[in-house]
């Protein structure tokens, strides 16, 4: 009897995943600092992208508020970093983003398509401009300092958030909640008529995806140590997850992961070797993917290898 789509848990897959996790966990012990820092960055992008897909993948609501949630995490770290121990700061960052996302979601998830995209972008920009104005005119100084934390600590915390994000993404796909989300994404009007409370499902999912973004913002702030509204709410961080998700393919669990990993690595190489050309490169890739690879890179690989099983 067929059930819901289940990812076939072959022992090989589980084993491979565990092996990779173990390798990642012991990395700081045998690698130099630079790869660890590099990996931290890549993991951050993966978290942002995978979180983004948790909501925007099934519902097809393109959210450009990722920068807002990440930024809220950063500011939480700046404000609470001296008061609370680090783990609590990270949790607080996630929580603050959760609340913001609930608020935004309840306000706007009845807006469709284009309006939702622009609204989420506007909120992010509004926060950025407002904080900049506030810090310039009311506080007098722009920017804050964040308590510094060792590279390895940052790495481990990001690693933990990464694992949790992947776990959540997996659970979402397998659970009823995830099924309800897919129904909403396929045909929202029908979904509400078969008993799905679309408002709650969408808002909650949106908030959950924001939480991981906020938590990762909180810890990354300690890496950058100086933050201001332009850094914290950089629209780049709203656009990139979208790009990476499209590139990797949103229909599969690992699509966004590979998309983000490849893109983040590419960005690092390009910004160091060809800093004047990387936007050109990304733009071209984006257009090529949209034109010729509608299911993303991962979708293409899936089709060639397995013929469709998720």
């Amino acid at each position, binding site marked *: 009897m067929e059930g819901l789509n289940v990812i076939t848990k072959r022992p090989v897959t589980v084993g491979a995943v565990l092996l990779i996790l173990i390798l990642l966990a012991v990395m700081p012990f045998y690698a130099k600092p630079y790869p660890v820092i590099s990996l931290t960055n890549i993991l951050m992008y993966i978290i942002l992208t995978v979180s983004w897909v948790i909501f925007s993948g099934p519902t097809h609501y393109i959210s450009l508020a990722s920068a807002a949630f990440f930024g809220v995490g950063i500011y939480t770290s700046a404000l609470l970093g001296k008061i609370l121990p680090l783990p609590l700061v990270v949790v607080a960052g996630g929580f603050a983003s959760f609340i913001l996302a609930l608020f935004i979601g309840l306000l706007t998830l009845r807006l469709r398509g284009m309006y939702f995209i622009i609204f989420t972008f506007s909120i992010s920009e509004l926060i950025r401009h407002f904080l900049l104005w506030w810090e310039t005119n009311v506080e007098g100084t722009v920017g804050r300092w964040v308590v510094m934390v060792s590279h390895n600590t940052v790495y481990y915390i990001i690693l933990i958030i990464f694992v949790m994000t992947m776990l959540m993404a997996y659970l979402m796909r397998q659970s*009823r909640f995830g*099924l309800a989300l897919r129904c909403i994404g396929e045909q929202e009007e029908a979904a*509400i*008529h078969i008993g*799905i409370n679309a408002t709650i499902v969408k808002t909650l999912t949106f908030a959950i995806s924001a939480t991981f973004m906020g938590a990762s913002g909180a810890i990354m702030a300690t890496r950058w140590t100086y933050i201001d509204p332009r850094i914290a709410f950089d629209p780049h961080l709203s656009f990139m997850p979208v790009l990476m998700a499209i590139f990797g393919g949103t229909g599969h669990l690992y699509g966004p992961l590979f998309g983000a990993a490849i893109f983040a690595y590419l960005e690092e190489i390009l910004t160091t070797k060809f800093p004047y050309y990387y936007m050109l490169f990304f733009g071209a890739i984006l257009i090529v993917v949209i034109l010729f690879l509608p299911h993303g890179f991962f979708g293409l690989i899936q089709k060639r290898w397995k013929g469709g099983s998720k």
Partner: protein
Amino acid sequence: MYQVDFEINPGEVVGLIGPNGAGKTTLFNLISGFLPITVGEIRYKGQKINGLNPHQICWKGVARTFQSTKLFAGMTVFENVVSASLFGSKRTVSLFKAERETMELLEFVDLLSVRTMLAKDLPIAHQKRLEVARALATKPDLLMFDEVMAGLNPVEVQEAMGLVAKIRDRGITIFMIEHVMKAIMEVCDRIIVLHHGSKIAEGRPEEVANSPKVIEVYLGE
């Protein structure tokens, strides 16, 4: 909607007809909670339901199909029905039970053999049946069909009429919008006629068919 006032009794099959633009689908949308009412009241089993959300009205036992099918196109036939089975009631349904109900329903509408096909790949007649199965999966007492026979050839219409009769025999009350006159006349116990948002006639099929008001409205269009 301007002036509409009617009742549906349990076990009945009531038809809703009227020229295009008369407001039939709008009436369905009001009943299902998709559109809000400004004046008046809708009661279901004695309870007021206007003002509730569509998913709550679904839980109370009202289900519907759509004029242009709104299936979950990228999901399989099985997934379409099992979703409704899982979410269609207020109380949580176990996956095992939902799957079993789904298999029964798919057999009931004769779609068992295509259960792994994607909904978007189905021919129109099967899509209509799938919508019916999905609606049935929410365990309704009242099932509203919105032109469930539109786009079907005469053979398929006959099959659809048979399905409607089978559903009625299960004890489910049916309220159906239809343009296929033959089906309405044969299957319905009573017919309501809508024109420009108002009810202009109501009664048994023969009465309505011979009513001068109704004839004028249809010939005049």
